[in-house]
């Protein structure tokens, strides 16, 4: 029992060390010349554009549900008019970034873990390396850049869709004009809501990309290892999203943005 816990702790520390080294290597290689633009574009299409429908539908539903569920509480305080501002602030600050990041952790994390993992166990990554192409630069750097760029973009789109869904939710009970709704949202959401959320999203993207690539590159034990890599990429990336969220709320608090 004690030995098991000790081993688990050691595995976890080794994992954290490995992930940190992988991240460090990404930053060393990320800005070096001879950049793989074609591969970055391809990955951004796969990881960004193809994730959009899922993120969009989820954001739409979250927007409506949040609006409909918050109404009775606000109505009890006679504050129903606050509905658009309240929903908009929660969406921009927390709901859209975290929901988008979790969807991406699941969708992108697992597909990167499985794709790179199967390339690893079938020696495709070794083949690339011996033909003189650095697989870290070609495969990992491009994929991590794509999530760093695409996750914040998806978050902005999720913001827009969820707020639009909120407008629909508000209008389910009372008729509110788009102009008035828009005015209320723009009055409520300020710079210090948007910017920290976007910065946080960049870190979500970084975590998802790094974990997916790290798990894929370090796949062992044949085909079974590929499933394992995909699974643990999702678990680790999701966990990291929450940890980053927690750190971010502390940091914005210290900087006086909360």
């Amino acid at each position, binding site marked *: 029992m004690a030995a098991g816990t000790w081993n688990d702790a050691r595995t976890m520390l080794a994992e954290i060390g490995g992930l940190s080294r992988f991240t460090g290597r990404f930053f060393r290689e990320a800005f070096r010349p001879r950049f793989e633009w074609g591969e970055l574009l391809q990955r951004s299409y796969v990881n960004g554009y193809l994730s959009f429908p899922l993120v969009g539908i989820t954001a739409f539903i979250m927007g409506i549900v949040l609006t409909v569920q918050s109404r009775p509480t606000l109505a009890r305080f006679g504050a129903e008019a606050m509905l658009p501002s309240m929903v908009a602030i929660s969406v921009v600050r927390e709901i859209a970034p975290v929901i988008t990041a979790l969807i991406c952790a699941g969708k992108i994390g697992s597909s990167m873990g499985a794709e790179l993992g*199967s390339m690893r166990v*079938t*020696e*495709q990554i*070794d*083949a690339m390396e*011996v*033909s*003189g*192409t650095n697989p870290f630069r070609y495969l990992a750097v491009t994929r991590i850049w794509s999530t760093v760029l695409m996750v914040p973009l998806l978050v902005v789109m999720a913001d827009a869709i969820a707020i639009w869904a909120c407008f629909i939710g508000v209008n389910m009970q009372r008729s509110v004009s788009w102009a008035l709704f828009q005015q209320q949202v723009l009055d409520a959401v300020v710079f210090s809501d948007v910017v920290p959320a976007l910065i946080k999203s960049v870190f979500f993207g970084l975590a998802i990309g790094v974990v997916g690539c790290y798990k894929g590159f370090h796949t062992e034990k044949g085909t079974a290892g590929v499933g394992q890599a995909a699974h643990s990429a999702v678990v680790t990336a999701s966990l990291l999203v929450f940890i980053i969220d927690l750190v971010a709320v502390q940091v914005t608090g210290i900087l006086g943005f909360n």
Partner: protein
Amino acid sequence: MDTLEPTAPAATAEAVIEVRDLCIGFGGRPVLRGFDLTVRRGENMMVLGRSGSGKSVLIKCLVGLLRPDSGSIRILGQDVLALDQEALDRLRVRIGFLFQSSALYDSMTVRENLEFPLRRHALARKPAERDARVREALANVGLEHSADLYPAELSGGMRRRIGLARTLVLAPEIVLYDEPTSGLDPITAREIVELILGLQRKYRTSSVIISHDLHVARLAANRIAVLIDGRNHAEGTYDELRAMSDPQIQRFFTSL
């Protein structure tokens, strides 16, 4: 094709690969324990060893995929273990590597697999030039009509041929073959060996062939090094080895 034999190197040919006292182990268990090997230009050197004896580990050390614990490796006059990443990548372009599993990029068609190394090294900049090289490489292995197939659509023998074509498309000076015939039926295996010999003759490559298969040894090798217990146990031509009385070497022949 039956008369095809490995072309013998000139007696004075310089060494293109020199491995000295190579040691590597995994988790405290030694795999290579002071392995020595010399390959001269134009020679087909075969390393014969049982499954799990460390043959793949040996050639992975040669191209820097694995780092040995000690020893020295010189290839084409360069000290592999002392090279920085860029110099190593430049050297790797001059060395071809055929993987046991063929290791084709399965998200790419056969054509894209062959074009990948050409694009990466800007060796054939114009599309027409690239096309010509891909066509030649496919013709070399007799698979001109497979350019637009995906690896999943190929048979094992075809994959091995495409792997060979991809290895040779960069015109390497040295080719390392990891069990080129394993998992193939005897007829296909024979065809692959003949292809290897034909291409060696055509492009004047030096090669290291790793295998446990004595048929390959007899057909393709100028010289054979026997890997036993992590060391180069004995070395010689097929006939020289067969004449040796050493029981560990005779075991390979009696299993024929």
